[in-house]
């Protein structure tokens, strides 16, 4: 934790190049005021120095922005289908004279009147699936930090799930909180 905080003092271009090896080195060092001062001075120097140079990062930045734009476009393509399906589900859960079933029914009927079912429910999601898969694949192959973060997340999740007391305890807390919130809400609403 402490090395992570110290390393965050460095500029991002420096961290991209040296973070891994530098944090491995910091793990060997004893915690002291001298160490903190040394690293802080190093971080200040790194912010003033042009090394490592940042120009090689620009193509990567452009690629990342393209991926971001494509991912948002894919989300927009699948969003109408999600809204329609959610409306369809909500209008079936209540009589349509009550909210939110009433609004959901209006949305659903408006969608039916458009005659755009195939485009919204089939073509859009297929495009979104292809584009989303491509973006995720490109990000995973281009970004070593992301792969490492996913690996760390899987390792942490695996460790947590191997503790049945913790899993059952969290489930009990969240489940009981949800039930009590529901009961209180109905008691207040009468």
């Amino acid at each position, binding site marked *: 934790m402490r090395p992570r905080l110290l390393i965050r003092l460095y500029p991002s271009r420096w961290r991209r190049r040296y973070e*891994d090896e*530098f944090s491995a080195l910091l793990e060997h060092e004893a915690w002291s005021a001298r160490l903190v001062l040394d690293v802080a001075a190093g971080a200040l120097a*790194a912010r003033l120095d042009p090394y490592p140079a940042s120009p090689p990062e620009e193509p990567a930045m452009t690629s990342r922005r393209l991926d971001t734009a494509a991912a948002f476009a894919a989300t927009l393509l699948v969003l109408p289908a999600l809204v329609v399906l959610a409306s369809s589900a909500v209008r079936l859960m209540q009589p349509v004279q009550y909210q939110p079933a009433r609004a959901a029914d209006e949305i659903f009927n408006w969608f039916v009147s458009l005659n755009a079912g195939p485009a919204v429910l089939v073509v859009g999601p297929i495009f979104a699936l292809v584009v989303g898969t491509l973006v995720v694949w490109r990000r995973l192959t281009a970004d070593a930090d992301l792969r490492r973060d996913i690996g760390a997340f899987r390792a942490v999740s695996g460790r947590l799930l191997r503790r049945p007391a913790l899993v059952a305890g969290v489930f009990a807390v969240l489940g009981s909180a949800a039930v009590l919130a529901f009961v209180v809400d109905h008691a207040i609403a009468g």
Partner: protein
Amino acid sequence: MPRHLSERGQPPEPGLLILTSLAGGPKHGYAMIEDIDRIARVRLGPGTLYGALARLEARGLIEPLPDEERRRPYQLTGLGREVLAEQLASFQRIAEAGMRRLAVV
């Protein structure tokens, strides 16, 4: 002890210490710190070490090797070897002249 005798002067420039350490073969950061501590009795902090490493790498005097479990070794380049030899020869001339004048040798 008088203050002027207790002060041993400025430690050598970190870049020179790193080049000298790498002259003995490729090393990663921690191995460099230990080696420099042994040969020069100077313990470089991690921030100082990596500041100097970045500058030496940018000048083409050292180069990184593939990393080994998050520890990346560095080695001297041909240019780094030449520059180190020149600097050490220069220091040697100065040291010999100084020692002669002090009549230490």
